[in-house]
């Protein structure tokens, strides 16, 4: 029997948006339910502004749900220290942000912070970062290379769940497919549970896994 890794029960979230200088409350997620098994890949599609990113942010507590409960291995995520929760649930953003310093400085960040035993060489090899790039200034990399660094940096924390917020949307088609292959390979290799947000139907088909669509604040099968 598959073990439930992550579960969202009756989760709701509203956000405030500024319209003509007035704060307007918009309900983004309404009584949303989701169960994800260990090692499962789930792709979440939906129109812009449908709440895909917000959903991911609730899972690693970058944002707080208004109501409902989110369980990690059966325990309420609010019972975890937020920093420790975020180490266990890694996130890769749509636009990659590299920190000041070299690629090596970026990769070593999580390892220094959490005292992990993942080697820089393993991380760079697994994520396709050439060794001669390790001492390059991270700020000077191409967007595709930056995204690889972001993925490697997140993996340095040895997360059990990876949240991917349109990780290839700022890349050209070739780089995007390389990153896709990389992530799918890592998922199998490391038995990662992945929630992959995308707005592209074709990409969701390529990725495979369980496909869901976020519509009117709830998840349906695509």
């Amino acid at each position, binding site marked *: 029997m598959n073990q439930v890794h992550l579960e969202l029960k009756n989760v709701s979230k509203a*956000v*405030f948006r500024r319209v003509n200088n007035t704060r307007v409350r918009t309900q983004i997620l309404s009584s949303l339910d989701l169960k994800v098994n260990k090692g499962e890949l789930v792709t979440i599609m939906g129109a812009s502004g449908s709440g895909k*990113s*917000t959903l991911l*942010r609730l899972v*690693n*507590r*970058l*944002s*707080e749900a208004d109501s409902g409960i989110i369980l990690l291995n059966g325990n309420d995520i*609010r019972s975890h220290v*937020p*920093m*420790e*929760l*975020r*180490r266990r649930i*890694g*996130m890769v*953003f*749509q*636009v990659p*942000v590299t*920190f*000041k310093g070299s690629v090596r400085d970026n990769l070593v*960040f*999580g390892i220094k*912070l*959490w005292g992990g035993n993942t080697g820089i060489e393993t991380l760079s090899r697994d994520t396709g970062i050439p060794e001669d790039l390790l001492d390059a200034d991270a700020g000077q990399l191409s967007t595709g290379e930056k995204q690889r660094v*972001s993925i490697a*940096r*997140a993996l340095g*924390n040895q997360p059990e769940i990876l949240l991917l917020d349109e990780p290839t949307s700022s890349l050209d088609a070739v780089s995007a497919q390389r990153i896709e292959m990389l992530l799918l390979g890592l998922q199998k290799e490391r038995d990662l549970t992945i929630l992959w947000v995308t707005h592209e139907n074709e990409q969701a088909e390529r990725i495979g896994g369980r496909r869901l669509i976020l519509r009117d604040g709830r998840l349906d099968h695509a």
Partner: protein
Amino acid sequence: MLEVLAITFTVFLVILSAAYARRFGIGKEILLAGTRALVQILMLASIILILFRKPLFWSFLVLMMMAAIAGHTTYSRSGKLEMGLPVAFVSITIASLLLLIPFFLVGIFPPEARYIVPTGSILIGNAMNVSSLAIDRYKGEIKNRRAEVETYLALGARPEIAVKACLKQGILSALIPSIDNMKNLGIVWIPGVMTGMLLGGADPMEAASIQIAIFTSIFATGMIASGLLLHFSTDSFFTKAAQLKEDMGQEL
């Protein structure tokens, strides 16, 4: 006689400046600011006159009041951050006292109201200016670099680590005018204390030595006050669950 001439000259200048400033639409503001400055400085002179005859305790009480007003000004500049008022007041007070007391301990000035109040007020005033600039810039940096801050948080970093670069930039930006002033001291301008002492007939070397001591104290006060303020304000930008508050820029 001298004071009557100086005050008359000031009133004349304020009126003239306000009249000229009308063409820029700020005539009323200049008139109001000039009048306020004149009344306030005369009030201060009267207070110092009274303080000459009072125990030193009263001088420190006046400085505390100045620090409270300075704290409130910085707090308003911060956008009225949670806990911002006590943090601003304590930061400015600690930094100013830390640099004021040595002047009297090492004997540069005798412990009298005529030295304590003006020197303290210079330190407090500058600590306020630097702190206001620093907190304003710090807040702006966090808003503009929300994506970077949240990338740090998403890796499990504590808020202090996530905003470290923003804090550094906030302090640096606020200190740039002081650093530039220090570089050009004596070349482009003769600062207030030295000017005052020279006009009062003091020896130029003595005036210069005291000026540089005060100048470096001003710099150190600003740096310490803004450092304390920014460090202890960091929590105000985050929730208890280490989430960047939603009003700190657009959520991604």
